[in-house]
């Protein structure tokens, strides 16, 4: 295997004195879909944010496109064409849908804005209807689509998605997973954090399982789906 697009090497991160990540190592190869599953509070979202230096890794390093980005300021990491649809969606509530999407396109000066807007509206037609509405007035599902759309506006090479299925109707979840698969077919690398382990593992090429700040298992999506401990913990509701 050639050098991975993103590699997280032995990273530890803290919130104050609480250790949220304990020596995590993960690799994401170019044009792969990699998923990270785990229970609430396992540190999945922390890892997503640590890739962007929020909080910054206290130990270990993060390498992207062969370059150590561990100490790079957050906004410069974003400019390397890594985009994130973060936990909690973080839509700008007092900006319109269009302005939210414009914020996503800011890193390349908005030169492809109209073309990319059309693409995003094709993926999520509801956004076209809401285009002049304020972000804060959208429903949860619409906000989720807007968050993903906003991340896509920067034409990322690596897309980080944190729980894109959270709080959405099953039909919408299926639609979003189809969009992820389609984006990947077009050449985008996706790193996906999910609690919806079944869907995520079916979609992903490879997966990691995280338990209280450490990676405990890894393998292809199929392998993990077959593992009894994964089934017991994440797929059968702990029965």
């Amino acid at each position: 295997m050639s050098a991975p697009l993103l590699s997280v090497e032995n990273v530890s991160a803290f919130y104050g004195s609480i250790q949220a990540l304990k020596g995590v190592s993960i690799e994401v190869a170019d044009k792969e879909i990699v998923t990270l599953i785990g229970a609430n509070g396992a540190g999945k979202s922390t890892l997503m944010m640590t890739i962007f230096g929020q909080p910054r890794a206290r130990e270990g390093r993060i390498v992207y496109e062969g370059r150590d980005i561990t100490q790079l300021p957050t906004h410069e990491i974003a400019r390397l064409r890594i985009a994130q649809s973060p936990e909690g969606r973080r839509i700008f509530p007092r900006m319109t849908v269009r302005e939210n999407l414009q914020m996503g396109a800011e890193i390349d000066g908005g030169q492809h804005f109209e073309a990319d807007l059309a693409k995003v509206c094709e993926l999520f037609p509801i956004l076209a209807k809401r285009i002049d509405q304020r972000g804060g007035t959208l429903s949860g599902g619409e906000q989720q689509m807007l968050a993903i759309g906003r991340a896509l506006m920067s034409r990322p090479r690596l897309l980080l998605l944190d729980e894109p299925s959270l709080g959405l109707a099953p039909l919408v979840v299926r639609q979003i997973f189809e969009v992820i698969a389609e984006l990947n077919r077009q050449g985008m690398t996706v790193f996906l954090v999910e609690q919806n382990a079944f869907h995520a593992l079916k979609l992903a090429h490879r997966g990691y399982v995280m338990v209280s700040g450490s990676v405990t298992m890894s393998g292809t999506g199929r392998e993990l789906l077959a593992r009894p401990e994964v089934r017991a913990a994440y797929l059968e509701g702990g029965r």
Partner: protein
Amino acid sequence: MEYLLQQLINGITLGSIYGLIAIGYTMVFGIIGMVNFAHGDVFMLSSFIALIFLLALSQIAGITSLALSLFIVLLLGMVLTSLWAWVIERTAYRPLRGSFRLAPLISAIGMSIFLSNFVQVAQGPRNKPVPSILADVITIRQGENYTVAVSYKQILIVVVTAVLLAAFWYVVQKTPLGRAQRACEQDRKMAALLGVDVDRTISLTFVIGAALAAVAGLMFMIYYGVVNFSDGFTPGVKAFTAAVLGGIGSLPGAVLGGLLIGLIETLWSAYFTIDYKDVATFLILAVALIFMPTGLLGKPEVEKV
């Protein structure tokens, strides 16, 4: 009737100046949640800068055209005051970001004291008289025993304020810089995730606020014909009051609040006693805040979750 009309004209003029200063308070509060107590002193400093340039242009450079020299003074004043604000933000506030909440506030009070003392030492404690300019008046209405007049400087103040506010509104609403600013105001972390340089945006916010305060400083100097090192305090507190009354964080609120404070102060002085004009202003603020804690336009956004 004529008397009231005259007071309204005076009140709107004064209110324009307050509004320009208030924007600096409200923008900085919106983006970093800090009351920049040194902003009033930046305003005072800018009126001295304006006076120095005005004298230099007429005495040393020998520019006789008033319009030209006012224009140059305005531009230079905005640039220099912005530079001050930039340095202040870098030295007194940015190092304390991420520290406990009160730290930058205390630093701002310290900076306020430093600035007024610096000007006192550098320029002397006495009132500096300003050569009278644009004092001619246009009579609007000749009453039986009262004449309503508007002076050229009042027209200048209101027109310049309106033009600048329109330009400023355009920047905030329509340009990438304005969007970045609003994004930082609503969610700084997310803005950074989208590639916005948050520190730079905050610096620019201080710089824009100071540029508007510099305009207010020049207007204040022309209007009152005198500047003093302690002039930062009262107009500063009034403008802060205007920002709170309008709803802190809201830009139209700051302008509306400024106009209201200007009108209240002027009308009170005209009909009651001038000694209590500041009391009246702050009393109305207190009453307004009891019944409308978020200010006039600072309604919290209804958000679906």
